[in-house]
């Protein structure tokens, strides 16, 4: 049973989790203020015989204070968030050395296209695997998201990465895995009755393992149902 975000699996996890914590603290303070305030008022000012309410229409000073403080906090929060937002999702944020994969979503499976030995997409030696995403650890990777039919959403919790795949659009999302191992890729946008089982396996390899896997795929004639999570 986990009470926090999943373990960090990509370089995004750092800033995002910190930001999450920061907001948790800010809002936590606000929350405690409000709830504790309410409880104390409820107890201290509960109606008792002979008690008189204090007749006032408000205090401009107090109101200015509790307008200004949230305003400042929010603007600051906005600026900080935007800094990371641009780094993560900005149209120009994809690193030049990123390793590009094609991810084609359709009801209800993921078709991942690998560039093959020449490391270039859209060439003859590309091969496609169903519901299996193999990537290299610490290697900036860019997935070029397209969709066959409806809107799907590429979601790997450990990577703190989510991006819709929209029919008619060609969206590039990038990430840099920091942990080898096996993860899960889920679909986060309702895409029909099969939405819940639109799931793929994610394998983060060391460069060597990845090369080996590619070689083995080529040998096997590439493509096809690469087994795995296609229930």
């Amino acid at each position, binding site marked *: 049973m*986990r009470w926090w*975000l999943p373990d960090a699996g990509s370089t995004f996890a750092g800033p995002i989790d910190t930001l999450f914590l920061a907001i948790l603290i800010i809002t936590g303070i606000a*929350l405690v203020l409000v709830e504790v305030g309410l409880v104390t008022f409820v107890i201290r000012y509960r109606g008792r015989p002979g008690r008189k309410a*204090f007749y006032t229409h408000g205090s401009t000073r107090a109101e200015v204070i509790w307008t200004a403080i949230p305003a400042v906090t929010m603007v600051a929060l906005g600026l900080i968030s935007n800094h990371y937002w641009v780094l993560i999702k900005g149209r120009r944020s994809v690193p030049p050395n990123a390793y590009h994969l094609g991810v084609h979503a359709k009801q209800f499976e993921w078709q991942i296209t690998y560039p093959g030995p020449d490391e270039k997409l859209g060439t003859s030696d590309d091969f496609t695997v169903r519901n299996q995403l193999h990537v290299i650890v610490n290697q900036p990777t860019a997935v070029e998201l397209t969709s066959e039919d409806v809107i799907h959403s590429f979601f790997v919790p450990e990577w703190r990465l989510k991006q819709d795949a929209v029919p008619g*659009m060609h969206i590039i999302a990038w990430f840099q895995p920091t942990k080898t191992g096996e993860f899960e890729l889920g679909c986060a946008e309702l895409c029909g009755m099969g939405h*819940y089982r639109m799931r793929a396996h994610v394998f983060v390899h060391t460069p060597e393992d990845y090369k080996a896997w590619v070689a083995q795929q080529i040998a096997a004639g590439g493509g096809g149902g690469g087994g795995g999570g296609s229930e």
Partner: protein
Amino acid sequence: MTTVAHARPDAHAEHAPMGFWRKYIFSTDHKIIGIQFLFVSLFFLLVGGLLAMQIRWQLGFPNTPMPGGKILPETYVASNGVILPEYYVQLVSMHGTFMVFFAIMPLLVGVYANFLIPLKIGAHDMAFPRINMASFWLALLAGLIMMTSFFVPNGPIRSGWTNYAPLAARPDLSGVTVGQMLWCIAIVVLGLSSVMGSLNYITTVINHRAPGMTWFRMPLSVWALFITAILGVLALPVLQGAAIMLLFDNVLGTHFFDPVAGGQALLWQHLFWFFGHPEVYILILPAMGMVSDIIANGSRKPIFGYHSMVFAIIGIAFLGWIVWGHHMFMSGMNPTLGSTFMVSTLLIAVPSAVKVFNWMGTMWRGNLRFHVPMLNAIGFVSMFTIGGLSGIFMAATPVDIPIHDTQFIVAHIHYVLFGGSLFALFAAITYWYPKMFGRMMSTGLGKAHFWLTFLFYNLTFFPMHIIGMGGQMRRIYDPTIYDFLKPQQPLNVFISYAAFALFAVQFLFAFNFLWSLKFGKKAPQNPWDDNGMEWSLPNPAPHGNWERTPNVYRGPYEFSSPEAEARGTDFLPQYVKLPTDRDPAPVPVPAAGH
């Protein structure tokens, strides 16, 4: 030059006694229409709740036969009574649709805008009573159309209450045919009803205020309902237009949202959320307004910072128009646009802060009376704060990346809509029940209902934040097929039990509501010692409200004022004329030339 107001065209003259049908069914009396709305939308609230229970069963106990599931047709459940994936998606979609469009919106706007506005501003009725009646019957019609979609082949929509295209636009992809059309038609009809209602409220507030009821003597509830009506009049037509285009995509083969022929999938999202976010403020502002009245009454103090409360309402309503993109951060929308939407969204925390802190300021050094409405109002403040604060997480774009479309969002939805709107409604229903039916609701039952609801509600929805952080997506039929979700399944089970309990205790309220209709104790004229104009009338108020247009002598929140103390009470109604008060200038009627 101005002449004295003559009796309003809608004054009591035409309010002669009439037969049962004209009086209770095809009534044009705003109070009766409000009550009609009340019963209908409580029924739809029950429907929404029943759907929710099935959702919880599935999420808590995937592929175990649902008790009584066997009675459902085999298009919905397997022969052994296990919910089918299609049906689950339909449950979620219709739950959201019914709760938002047919339960909470009619409850807040249909019931209380109708019931309160004329009573609180001293008007004899709405500006257009017949349009008002039409608005109710259209709303009912829309609800029934939406209901029938359960009984047509392939059942209701399968694309969430948001109906994202192209899924919703392509029967071949969604597997829904008639259901989708019915959804669109129902929404168009509902939109019509809302626009009719709203333009009624706007005109009434602007043109039918009693002498002395200046803008800044209006209770905050009226202010909120007025601003809400403006939102409604401007937002719903957009949804209607979108729904019509979606309908045409389904039946006429148009290509608005169909990328294959050059349509744009994101266009639907823009149209929907451009309506959708003002809509969520339609669902909260009236609640805020009524809670303000109740908290002032319960604290026996003037509302803290009346003017800033008004401007906060206006501010929220205005900002509500420029934040819709925060629902689309992950949709592939231009990231620069995302930045601007983030900032505007975060700014909404400011007017909301003003409201929350002013409510606390109102209770501060008050003389609190914990009657049932007050309890629920306090519940509203504390719970809405949680919901609002979780909104801040999602508003910060980077943080929204992991939690978008997870149960974290679901937690937010319910903290603002149940913890917010619905608690406010429990308060409002209890508070104005005597004005509606002339009887009080049982206090004991009311308190029991409040505390139990408060408890189980938090047990149900708070853990959703955690499983959302854990990554459980929304609208998934069976979380357990994901390995990373298996460990937190016990929490889902826990939530489900809590939800069943939550549903069960709602029947305390249902019982209290229905039982008191007949057996509740007779209500005194001013049961809550309140200042509102409505309490100058007998309970229930007669058709046409006042014999002669009443005069208003002061603001709505004169609790514990020196004048009041002088009278040996702690409240001073707006309609009471003190020897020191001069009559307000009679409503000036511009003579020829205007």
